[in-house]
């Protein structure tokens, strides 16, 4: 057990170092962009050199790069004041910066967008895991039979239909053409506001997003099961006289768990950075839409923040997966 603790703490250390590197890299990339961050703070058609110069000092863009990065980093832990005196704007830790385009602390913007994306991703994940694993098992179990053919057709449709098209089809047939449709055409209701309405507003986005992933998972689970079925230890299980059902349920699926968990974890982490298309189609104010708007408006602090958050989620998920792996695979624990 102490081995496991050492393993986890070492993995944590590595993760912290990687996160620092990620934040630094992202910061450098955006510092190299041919935009003057100070000029961007006063709007698109602003040419007043006085305001720009004042903002440059107020936001610390006059300082050397290293100092700027240090201020950014400390701001993440202790919060940050933009400007001084009565005009100062304070952002609480973790302060990612201040968006002049949206007149808000970036952290507040993230705080609004992240939950939407988290709800979207979790619902979709549950849905696609159930459908993908279920169909994958059926498909492998009845290989070459009608169920396998049907599920292959599902896989083909699911992988070839782009998300925005699936979303639009659902909107057209289940919202616009369906008389008395319970689903709102667009817009998002927070769960704490009205939970029923929240569920209704999320069903179609969940289905849309899960559809594409379920297809990929069906194919993946099917191929995993078929591959594991040729393993020697499955033949041993058969030679012991176990029923096909026990072999599949206990021996094959247990071995397929590790790769499925890995794939699901990484896909889930990727989605937390924002499901841009799904969010756009259903007009959900999540991370994807926040990033999209920020890119269009060249809202640098928001772009830096969403990039760092998305990358950090992937890094942290990798750490979680490594730790989960130690529980799934006894060979990793030493």
């Amino acid at each position, binding site marked *: 057990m102490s081995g496991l603790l050492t393993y986890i703490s070492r993995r944590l250390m590595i993760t912290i170092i990687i996160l620092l590197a990620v934040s630094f890299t992202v910061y450098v990339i955006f510092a190299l962009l041919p935009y003057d961050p100070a000029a961007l703070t006063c709007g698109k058609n602003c040419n007043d050199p006085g305001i720009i110069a004042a903002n440059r000092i107020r936001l610390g863009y006059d300082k050397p790069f290293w100092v700027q990065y240090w201020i950014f980093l400390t701001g993440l832990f202790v919060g940050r004041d933009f400007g001084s005196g009565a005009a100062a704007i304070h952002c609480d830790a973790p302060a990612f910066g201040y968006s002049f385009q949206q007149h808000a602390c970036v952290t507040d913007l993230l705080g609004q967008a992240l939950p939407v994306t988290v709800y979207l991703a979790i619902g979709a994940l549950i849905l696609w895991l159930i459908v993908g694993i279920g169909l994958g098992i059926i498909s492998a179990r009845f290989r070459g039979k009608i169920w396998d053919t049907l599920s292959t057709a599902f896989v083909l449709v699911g992988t070839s239909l782009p998300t925005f098209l699936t979303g639009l089809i659902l909107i057209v047939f289940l919202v616009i053409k369906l008389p008395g449709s319970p689903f709102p055409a667009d817009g998002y209701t927070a769960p704490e506001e009205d939970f029923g309405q929240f569920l209704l507003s999320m069903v179609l986005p969940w289905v849309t997003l899960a559809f594409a992933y379920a297809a990929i998972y069906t194919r993946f689970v099917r191929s995993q099961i078929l591959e594991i079925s040729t393993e*020697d230890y499955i*033949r041993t299980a*058969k*030679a012991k*006289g176990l029923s096909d059902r026990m072999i599949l349920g206990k021996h094959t699926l247990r071995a397929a768990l590790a790769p499925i968990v890995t794939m699901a974890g990484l896909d889930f982490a990727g989605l937390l950075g924002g499901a841009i298309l799904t969010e756009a189609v259903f007009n959900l104010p999540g991370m994807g839409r926040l990033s999209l708007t920020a890119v269009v408006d060249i809202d640098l602090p928001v772009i830096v923040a969403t990039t760092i958050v998305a990358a950090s989620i992937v890094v942290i998920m990798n750490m979680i997966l490594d730790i989960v792996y130690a529980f799934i695979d006894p060979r990793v624990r030493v």
Partner: protein
Amino acid sequence: MSLLSVRDLRVEFKTPDGIVKAVAGVSFELKQGETLAIVGESGSGKSVSNLAYMGLLPQSKTTITGSVILETEDGPVDLIGLAPEKLRAIRGKDIAMIFQDPMSALHPYYTIGDQLIEAHQVHNDVDKKVSADRAIELLTLVGVSNPAERLHSYPHQFSGGMRQRVMIAMALMNNPKVLIADEPTTALDVTVQAQILRLLRDIQDQFEMAVILITHDLGVVAGAADRVNVMYGGRLVESAEVGELFKDPLMPYTVGLLDSIPRMDKGHGNRLKAIPGQPPSLITLGDGCAFAARCSRKAELPEGTCETSPDLIAVKKEHLVRCHLYVGKGK
């Protein structure tokens, strides 16, 4: 009386290239308490013939005909064509198997306790505690130290030889009448091989089991078997008691096999004799003698003789051979 009686067993696989006749009419008897070695090179059908009646070949593309009669408590049962559920009840109980590679034959994610207990639970409606005690008893028997603790270990925490011991313990969980050992020592170190073979010999006496030892290693055969079946091209080509076979091999293939073993007593400097040519394709192999293309004594026979396959005939007592050279020379 025979415990297992194999009659005209044929196994064919459908492949995109044609029908592979992996086993083309094999017959043999297995008596209680004896060790029958089946030798032959890769693709000779030595493994497939035994996997076939155990129901361990992929069903969809395999055709199995013939009969394999097993004596059970409820009388003789033909394993070929038996309902899958009934065959499953025999598998692991009356006939157990151990395999070539103990590294991959145990499930990496379950403790060996889990796997041993499971083997007992499938065929016995008893408390898990009873199965666990049985597992400890058998681990002790096969020479695993601290068996009660080792139940909680995973396969990767054992060495190859120890894992094969665990496999043997697992096979013995239900007191099988027949143990099929498919190349049980091939993947092991030479020193460990000897230990495993000795262990197999000991437990065989203790359990009064019949053992089918599938191997390509004649060294293993010499030390462990009572009788030897030599297979070539999916056919049984020679069968004799082990001493007799080593002393007086008849079929040119068997002679070639024996000549290809290094021998310390024949002095240095003698090059090992390899059998020229390649094993036959089991798709295009016709009705003729399977070994004809590689046979060193083909010239002794009249032209065209080898285009038919001879029957398996008894040349001496308990010494059968399928070879034109010995047709009409029975004693």
